[in-house]
């Protein structure tokens, strides 16, 4: 029997979903509302110097990569199934496109974070 590669994608989907469920609302609130509009948090929290320091620390790199890449893999898996639900039955094509985009996003994130 041919081995399924489903567990790999499902693990990435699960990890991303769990990460988004646990800290997603806080991240969106911080980066999209609190900091840009100076609500509850200092407006210079995400200043160039601060974010550069974060992205140059290995822990910061890991955190940013985990959030960006896992969110993408989580979304890719769900969107692939969603397209099937809406009658797009070219399964291989849909999966190639969805997982492909998540893969490209991951590569770009890894490359950029390593270069910083």
């Amino acid at each position, binding site marked *: 029997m041919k081995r399924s590669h489903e567990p790999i994608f499902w693990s990435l989907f699960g990890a991303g979903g*769990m990460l988004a*469920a646990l800290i997603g609302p806080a991240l969106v609130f911080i980066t*999209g509302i609190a900091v840009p509009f100076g609500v509850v948090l200092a407006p210079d929290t995400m200043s*160039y110097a601060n*974010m*550069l320091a974060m992205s140059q620390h290995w822990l910061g790199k890991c955190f940013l990569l985990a*959030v960006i890449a896992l*969110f993408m893999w989580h979304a890719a898996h769900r969107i692939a199934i969603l397209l099937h639900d809406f009658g797009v039955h070219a399964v291989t094509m849909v999966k190639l496109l969805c997982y492909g985009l998540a893969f490209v996003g991951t590569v770009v994130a890894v490359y950029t*974070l390593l270069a910083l």
Partner: protein
Amino acid sequence: MSNRRPYVRSMDGWWKRDVYFIRYMAREVTALFVAAYAVVLLVGVLRLSQGQAAYEAWLQALKSTPSLVFHLILLATFVYHTWSWFNIMPKTMPIMFVGGKRVQPGTITGTGLAAAVVACLAVFFIVRGMHP
């Protein structure tokens, strides 16, 4: 060639037929917003790597009204994602036993939601503690 033209029930709008399907769809559609937020962050990292001016343009864009509206929508969908994620968790995780008794679905959902609240507060206070 056959002249038979059997009736095939249309699948259009199948998910609107049942509250259960509507809830399923609402849960799955949050993925589009999760992807959108990942792209926002990825662009931020890319701009950061291009230097101070590029990064500050990205920050400036976050201060616009459309961005605020967008992030309020994102926040609502992320909260819904958290809520639905732990609501289906009793069905997605392996059956768990503690002291010979099966852990009840309500306990799993409740624990998950409590963990999410704690994790969100922890992230918020860590960020606040670093840049008071």
